[in-house]
Structures are given as C-alpha cells and as structure tokens.
C-alpha cells in the first residue's frame, strides 16, 4: 500500500468537507473491498477518510417503507426485524454473500460501491484493462472469462458486479440517498450502477465527493413473497455465477399481479429483468410462460469462450426462482 493520510471525521459534513477536490481521496467504511484493492495496488489513495464512526447506523420506518443507514453492517441489516419481516429477500441476498466475518465488517453503503469482479482488473500486472487504464484494452474478452458478463457488456469491459445485496435492492426498487459538496440527492437503485459502455472505469453515477447516507426501501405489501436464488461454484463463500431476486404478488389461482425480478452475476450492474417482469405480469406461472419470459429477458445476451453457459443458466434460474415463490416456498 502506498502511504496515505488518515482522517476519521465525526460528522457527515466533516467527511464531505474533508474529501475536498482531491482525486486521490477515498472514503473507507468496512474496508473489505477497498483495502483488498489497495493491497493489490489497484486503488492507491493518498488520503483515506474513515467514515466508520459517522452516525449513519440506524434502521427505522420511513414513510411506508424503511430507511437503512449507510453504515449499518450487512449483518445488522440482514438480522433486523424490519428487514426480515418486510423484505426478507434482502436478508436472503445479504446472507448468501461473502462470509459472516466479512458481513460483520461490510457496510450497506460500501457494498453498493464494491468494484466489479474480474481477474484482469484486480491484478495490475495485467496490462490490458480499460477499467484500470482507460484505452489499454480488455484482457477478459479473449482471455479466461468464465465469471464474466453476458448482458449489457461493451467491447471495453465484460466485468460483472459481484454484490448479492444489490440484486435484492434492485428488485426492491430501493433508493440511494447521497450527500455531497453540492447538497443531498436521491438515486434510484436501477440508476445507481452503470453499464460499462465506453467508460468502464466509472461504475456508478455517484459524483466525486458524494457520500451515501442511507438506502430507502419503499413499501411493498407482498414483500414476503420473495426469494433470492444464488448459483455458484461452491455452496458458500463464493461469488454468484448467476443469481435471481424475485418479489411478486400472486393471486390464489397463481396469476401474478406484480412481478419484480433482478439478476446478479450476469452484468456490470445488478440487472433488472424488466422484459421478463412485463411478460409475466398478469400471467399464470406455468413452466411454458416462465420459460418464454426468461427467453425474452436473455434474448440479447451474448457469451464468450467460457461463460456462454450463463445464458441458459440465467433462464433456468429465473424459472426456478419464480416457481419457488409461486409454489409457496418463499420467505413468508
């Protein structure tokens, strides 16, 4: 790690002021991703602002929904009664990720900001990575790309967003509250992360110096009819190959009035499956309808030498996850 200065502010405003204009400043929350990247030499901040003591550690009812402070640990969010009873898919998703130790450290805001996962990005000794060095190329496209994206990628970058939590937040239409030098604003979860396009180095729409203060969950009366399905190479402590968050409202006869589906492990951002949602809304969840909806969602998917299986896997995962919820094996 390059030497850096360290500052531990007590208030949000102090943190934002401390950030200033410096390009090489980073906020550090749990540190589980940033420190990893600093050790690899991918992140080389000159200044660290430790936001771990800021008073953003509360979960409380907010309007009809719930507000989660940005510095709540992943563990505390997953365990919280308000989350478990109203948004169990978020609990499921968080608990499917990482390990108990990491979840104790990782914060909600930090999880939102974890960098995309790609072998070639994480190790600066690979010369080609448009994310680390814009214009240098993408080593993954013709390299070993089993874990990489099949949806929304660009010729510049095929890395995937590794978060489980964010997939659930996307399905839940969460809203990210941020505060920066120019004041406060809200960013919808679906707008928070970006597809790589020609600027894969920019992963979110957060502006320089902005600090995430909270995550708001809207009221979803059918939130218990939900499931997070994670498919991975080992049964725990592994990144998703494909994951699916489903929240839906089904009639007693199985007709789906509202459907929310998000995919993980397939794209540079948590992937809201709007096409599948549309295809399923108002329909009954029979295998044929589900398969058709999944086909539609993945119609534009494109795989590479080692990851094409993700396309079929994602389709089957959508079918399985929705079937699980409609079949009553959900969280309720």
């Amino acid at each position: 790690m390059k030497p850096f200065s360290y500052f531990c502010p007590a208030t949000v405003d102090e943190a934002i002021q401390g950030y200033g204009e410096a390009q090489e400043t980073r906020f550090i929350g749990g540190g589980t991703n940033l420190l990893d990247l600093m050790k690899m030499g991918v992140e080389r901040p000159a200044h660290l602002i430790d936001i771990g003591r800021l008073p953003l550690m509360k979960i409380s009812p907010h309007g009809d929904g719930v507000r989660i402070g940005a510095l709540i640990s992943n563990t505390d969010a997953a365990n919280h009664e308000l989350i478990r009873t109203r948004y169990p898919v978020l609990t499921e998703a968080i608990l499917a990720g990482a390990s108990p130790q990491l979840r104790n450290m990782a914060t909600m805001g930090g999880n939102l900001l974890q960098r995309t996962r790609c072998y070639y990005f994480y190790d600066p000794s690979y010369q080609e990575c448009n994310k680390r060095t814009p214009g240098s190329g993408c080593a993954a496209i013709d390299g070993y790309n089993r874990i990489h994206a099949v949806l929304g990628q660009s010729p510049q970058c095929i890395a995937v967003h590794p978060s489980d939590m964010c997939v659930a937040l996307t399905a839940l239409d969460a809203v990210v509250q941020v505060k920066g030098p120019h004041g406060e604003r809200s960013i919808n979860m679906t707008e928070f992360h970006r597809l790589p396009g020609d600027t894969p180095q920019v992963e979110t729409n957060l502006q320089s110096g902005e600090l995430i203060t909270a995550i708001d969950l809207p009221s979803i009366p059918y939130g218990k009819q939900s499931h997070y399905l994670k498919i991975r190479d080992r049964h725990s402590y592994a990144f998703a190959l494909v994951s699916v968050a489903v929240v839906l409202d089904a009639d007693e006869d199985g007709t789906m009035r509202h459907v929310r589906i998000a995919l993980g492990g397939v794209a540079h951002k948590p992937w809201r499956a709007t096409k599948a949602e549309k295809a399923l809304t108002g329909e009954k969840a029979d295998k044929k309808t589900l398969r058709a909806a999944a086909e539609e969602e993945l119609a534009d998917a494109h795989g590479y030498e080692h990851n094409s299986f993700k396309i079929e896997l994602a389709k089957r995962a959508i079918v399985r996850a929705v079937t699980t919820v409609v079949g009553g094996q959900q969280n309720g």
Partner: protein
Amino acid sequence: MDDLIGQPLDRIDGRVKVTGRAVYAYEHDVPNAAYAVMVVSSIANGRIASMDTRAAEQAQGVLLVITHQNSLKVPGAQNQSKTSPPGHAVQALQDDVVYYANQPIGVVVAETFADAIAGAQLVQVTYAPQPPQMDLESRLADAYAPDKAGGGGDPAASHRGDVQAGMAEAKKSIDYVYRTPFEVHNPMEPHATIAVWNAPDRLTIYDATQGVFSDRGRVASVFGLPPENVRVISPYLGGGFGSKGPVWSHVILAAMAAKQAKRPVKLAVTRPQMFGMLGCRSETRQAIAMGAKSDGAITALRDDTVSHTSMFGEFVEAASLPARMLYQSPNNSTSQRLVRSNIGQPSYMRAPGEASGTYGLEAAMDEMAYALKMDPVEFRLKNYAETDPEENKPWSSKSLRECYLQGAKHFGWSKRPLEPRSMQDGNALIGWGMATSVYPTRRSVSNASARLNVDGTFSVDAGTQDLGTGTYTIMTQVAAEAFGVDAKQVRFRLGDTILPQTPVSGGSQTAASTGSAVHLASQALREKLIQMAIRDARSPLSGLGAQDVILNKGRLYARSNPARGETFRELILRSGQPHVEAKAEAKPGAEKDHYSMYAFGAQFAEARVDADLGQIKVSRMVGCFGAGRILNAKTARSQFLGGMIWGISMALYEYAAVDKRLGRWVNNNLAEYHVPVNADIGKIEAIWVDEKDDHVNPIGAKGIGEIGITGAAAAIANAVFHATGKRVRDLPITLDKVML
C-alpha cells in the same frame, strides 16, 4: 498402556494449536529481522529487459532491492540439467530469463512488512517477452518419454501380454480420454522462511518445510557451505501436501537477502505468488482403453498419460501407475510422456500420480461396468488381483476385498439401482458411485534417539516434521508403549536438524520410516533399562531374566510378582547417570524385493445434482481403507477424511484457470481458486479394516496421508454419472458441464 498404539489419543500438539501458541515459520521471534517481499514476473516466457528499482529504493523504510543485476551469485543455484527433480533448479535472480509467470525476479527488503510490500509495488519491470507454451492438447506430438515415472522410480512405460489381441478378444470395450486440470496445493500457511546468518558461513533457517534435512542439504549446496553449518528449524507446519517438500526459490532468496542486507530477514510468499513458484499438480491427459469379456473379465487395458513439466526440470505426474497393478488384466500397457511448458516446476501434490491416475482408471472402470451392465463392485471383484500382476510378487497384505464389502455395507450400496438417473428427490437427481483407492507403501532411512531423564521422564528425538499429520502424537504413542508409560511421560521433539536425521515427510512415509526408527530406538532403550536393572544388585529386579521384566504403568517389575519392581526414576537415580540414551537407525530391508506393498481402499459417494441448475453436492461419502497398523484412531481418521475431502475438491472444485495467451493462472487467490468450505461437505465417514502386515516395516504401518484422496474423485464422478446419465471426463465437474 499396553495398547497405547492405536488409541484415539488427543493430539499432543492440540493445546498449543487451539491457544495460538504453536509457532510457525514466520512467527519465530528473531531480533532485528527485516521484512522481505518478492517481486514476481508477469510474463511467462522471455527475458527481463530492464528493472528500474530507484523509486522502490527511495521509498519509506526500504533497505535493499535485489534483482539479477545486483544479486549475490550462488553457483549452486544454477540449473544443472533439464531433468533435475523439483526444487533442484531454483530461480534465484542469477540471470534475466523468465520461465514462468509468478517467477521471482526481485526481492525488496525493508524495515516493516508495509514498507516492503509498498516498495515491491514500485519496482518497474520491462520485458522482452516470447509467446508462452502452456497448452497440452495442441502439443501432444511434441511430448517426450521420460526415463522414469513416479516417486518410486518406476519405469516410464510398461507392457505385458498383447493389448491388441486382448482388445480383439473383448466382448465390450471402451476408449476415452480423461483429463485433470492444474491444481495448486495452497496449504493454509503460506510458505515462509526466516534466514539468520549467525556467522559468514553459518546459517539458521526457520522454514515451513516438509524436510528439514533435505532443506539443509540443498541450502548448503547452493551457498557452498558444509551441511553442518546450516541449521533448519520447523516445529510446526501449516500444511504442505507436497508443496513444502522441495526447496523452492524463496528459501534461497531469504538467505541471500539476509546475507546482502546483513540482517536477519523474514520472507513470506503471498497467496497470489503461491500459484507458480511452489509446484503444482500438473494437468493430465489420460487416454484409457479397456476391453472385457461378457462375464466381466478384463482382457486388455491401456493407459497413455501425458502431463506437463517445466522448461528447466522434470517431474512426471505418473497417473498411469495404478493401471499397471490394480486389476488382473492379462494384456496391459501403460506409458507416460511429458511436454515442456512455461509453468513453474510441477511437483508432488497429495498422492502424486495416484490421485489423478485413479480418477481416470476408476472412471473408466465405471464406464466398462455400465457397458457390461454389471454392478461396479462386482466388476472390480471379478478382476481382483490376488498378486501384483505387473511385478509378479505377492502383496505384503491386501484387504481390498474386505474394503469393498465393508464399505458397500456401510454405505447401503446393495439398494443401488443399476440404471443411471433413476433416483430423484424434488429437484435433485441422486446418484451413487464408487471407486478403488490405492497408494504405495514406502520408507526411507530414518533415525531416532530415546532417553530416560533423571526425573524419570522420557525424551525422544527425531528431526522429522508434523504437517498436521499427527507425527508428534503417534511418535509419542510408539515410544510410550515401549516404555509402558503414560504419553504424558514422553516428550517428543521434531523439526530441527540438530535432532537425528530423518527423511522428508512425503509419500506417506513418515510413520513407516521415522515411526520405525522411534520404535527401534525406544525398544533399544527399553532393553538397556532392563539390563541396567537386572544387572544391578541394588535393584529389586536383580538377577531376573530380561524376558521376566515387565514395563508398565511407569514401573519395571517382575512378571511373576508385580510388587517386585521399581520406578524409572529410582533406576536412574541409583545409576548416578544424568540420563540413559539409545539410538537407532531404521532402513528399508529386503521387503521390497519380496513383496508388493500398497495400501488399498474403497470409496462410496452419493451425489445430489440439481436437475436444472447443475449444482452438485456430495451428500454422503464412505471410505473404507486397509492401510496396515493404525497408530492413532483419531488422527488417522482425520487423515483419511482430509484425503477424501481433497477428493471432493478434485472432483468438483479445484482448478487453476489458464489464460493460454498469457501463460498465466488467472484465479490465483482463494476467492476464485475454489477449495471446499465447510458447507460443501456432507455426511462423511472413514472406516478401516484391521490389517496386520509384518512385512512392510517394524511397526506395520502403511502410511495414510495420501490413500484418502485416491479414488475419491472417481467415486464422485461416477456418482454424478449415476445421478444424471451424463459422463464428464474432465475435472472438475463444475455445474456448467452437467447442466447443458
């Protein structure tokens, strides 16, 4: 205490390990030690064009940056021959050649670890790269036949009968290629060395090594020192699995850095750096053809294996060896060939040869059984080798038949439907598979000493190592039983070259070699003490015959009258000596000329495979082994189970993912190089057949560290086939290979 050997004694080193007081290599408190971090190559083939070390040298706390341009020249590190074994050729910054990715090309020495690692990141390297050679399949035509194969120095090829005629005679036949990937040992303790020059020609090394004496010998030869000027210390070892057997480059570099920095230096290999310079299990390609009559008798078997070696040394992943001796096949041929690739030296990894070899062979056996519509156990029993078919020698002992039967019974094998894809539970397809385990029994020359101390306790010494295998515990048991004392009365020391010389802990030979030495030394001391007593007029045992004296419960007493006797303390105090000592050397005898010596076993696995998503779980596994005398039921069981879990890992999880363009393993971390976590393991049991083998060695132990992985991957692969009807012939069986 009569039967201390075999008892499930808790580990002697248990208490220090659960309290964090066991001191591993990097943890020895050496005053004034500086920290060293290696710089490694990012290309796999070529030369270093330039290294700019100025920024690193100026960085906070950096004391020294060593590259090939300013390194101490150590002629002994130079490569002698391209057929040198693992660990002989080291990359010690002697030239600008890059043979593989992650090769050491520099060392940064600094005041603190943070300074050293920051400094290492500032070293700028430019290369003159060449295209790397890493692919096996496209270079099969370039493969060459080595002289020997395997740790036992077996021939690289074998022939008996006429395979072509045997295949013609067959009613059914199969002919397939089985593949295993590159694997990396990844012990939890990263390799680490602390080097201290006590004088210009005297060196002490605290090293994570499986062989303190081989370490000493190699380091001494590299630095041109007499071996006795080098002391290697390794009391605890955080796993090794073969990777800590050879002496790799970092050990030499630690000593070199200490010499050049004129300070003690501690150097740990980082986890990403562990993928390359510390050996690996080579990728293998096993082409197996087999024919059988309709009654199941094998008529012919052929196994042609190709694996990689490095550009600068030679190691044969001898996967074809089991096909030579495991079944009574009258017409048999095997071969081993090698391709040279831009990889670090492939080397010994838990059951080298047999682990990969039993996967190919035992998967092929399963395919043959299906072709014949025979039960896989029945098929193996039909071809049971009553003697070694290759060597034409009797087995020293073989309980494989009992292993099949007991394992099958324990597992509930008789309820298995023959047809694949015939058991289901919800979304899970369920399958049962089995395979045979085999691993050779070897031993080497080993020494030990035993001493009665003036306080009546015993000290037993041997330089050997405990990788977690239970050496501390079983040696203590062997000695304590000889003296008829509680294990607490014996202090066993190991892991130091000032102790009696012992072989490397590899090839499952520590119990057989050093266990025998401890046994002989303890027996010698026992005899000495009996003689002291019966020849001493002041002893209550005076005048008795040696055979009339019993050692039990901490006393020596008369067989006819337990009240007539004395304690060890009384005996030694009266003698006036500070201690009484005996030494012994145990060495292989003629047993190898007369017998074929192997441990055998049978493994049974249940796989649950998600019918749509392909996710696989080994929900149940039973291994039954015949491995000679079991010295400690508790640690032995752990060794078997650990091996079986390695088999699960081999079957489903582990592989170093190759970027062939760059010649690099891209998943060089524990997040993406998957080894099993706790949640991956279902119900797993190891049982064994009591086996008395008087031929193998004085204590009758066959070695148990490696047998558990052999056959395990095949049993699981066969279970996955039984579950799904899909045969995957390249490991690991990841979900994409079964779902599509």
